[in-house]
């Protein structure tokens, strides 16, 4: 049995390699917000209140492009709706927690944290304090995101744009799914999702980000049926 502290530390360690892409991206996000002409406090408030990577940039870009607040808020909601799927997966491991703890832990559920904690959970189902791993990944992400976006806001885009560091984001997610390329069913699901996301990229409110996972999960369901 691992202690709470050991699990928390393990979570921190498991997510920390992803900071290689998260920190430059956070700096870029902060800098873009200020460049678009928004008040620095507002740009920072988003990192605290929304705490949702790309959705923050989309929100500001829409507003500065003249879109209504309703459109901007809806887009953030749709982009972040993928968390519903993460929650559905995590609920199995968090079932024993009290309602209040579930409410608190939810705030720190992020893409990379979900991915790494889910991998850990699958291998260590019997651990009693599993959720400390998720708190570890989530808090690490939270702290780094706050610091990164703040530095972008204060110092401007001191990360040279020519480096194209936004490209680190797809790379970070490649690192997450690459081992599943060993399994044919997962490859089919990934390709379905990827191609759908390109096909539906222009769908309103950035909805490709939830439409393509739904199509891919549907295909996963069909594959499961074929396997039997």
């Amino acid at each position, binding site marked *: 049995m691992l202690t709470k502290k050991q699990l928390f530390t393990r979570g921190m360690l498991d997510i920390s390699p992803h900071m290689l892409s998260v920190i430059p991206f956070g700096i870029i996000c902060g800098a873009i917000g200020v460049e678009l002409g928004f008040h620095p406090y507002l740009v920072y408030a988003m990192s605290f209140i929304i705490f949702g990577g790309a959705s923050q940039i989309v929100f500001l870009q829409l507003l500065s492009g003249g879109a209504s607040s309703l459109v901007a808020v809806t887009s953030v909601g749709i982009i972040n709706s993928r968390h519903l799927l993460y929650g559905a*997966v995590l609920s199995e491991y968090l079932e024993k927690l009290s309602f209040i703890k579930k409410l608190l832990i939810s705030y720190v559920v992020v893409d990379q944290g979900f991915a790494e904690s889910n991998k850990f959970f699958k291998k260590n189902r019997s651990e009693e304090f599993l959720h400390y791993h998720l708190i570890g990944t989530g808090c690490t992400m939270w702290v780094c995101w706050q610091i990164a976006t703040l530095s972008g806001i204060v110092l401007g885009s001191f990360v040279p744009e020519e480096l194209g560091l936004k490209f680190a984001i797809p790379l970070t997610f490649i690192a997450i799914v690459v081992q599943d390329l060993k399994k044919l069913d997962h490859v089919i699901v990934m390709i379905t999702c990827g191609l759908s996301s390109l096909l539906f990229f222009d769908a309103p409110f950035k909805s490709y980000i939830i439409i393509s996972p739904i199509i891919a999960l549907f295909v996963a369901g069909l594959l499961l049926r074929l396997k039997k």
Partner: protein
Amino acid sequence: MTLTAIIFAGILTYFTRMTMIALISRDMLGDKIKAVLEYVPSAVFPAIIFPGIFINDFGTFIEMNDPKIFGALVAVIVGYFSKNIIATISAGLISYWFLIFVVFS
């Protein structure tokens, strides 16, 4: 005005995170749904990966000889064999930089 919108966007985002964790109990999901949920990472992350590679900042498709495609392929190969996140990201970035700064400059 903008702050109000940010607060609404934040509440909405929080609900996407909280709903399934706090309001759904695992018994409400059948075995079939649970089996499908095993595929969530593979079904979600390519929707971030593919557009990040194949679509540029202006929302249009990149050329088939774009350095990002090469960088992503290198990342996949290095990631597959090294099983190391830092190696995967670095390999992708370095091969991408090599193309844009050395080969195509």
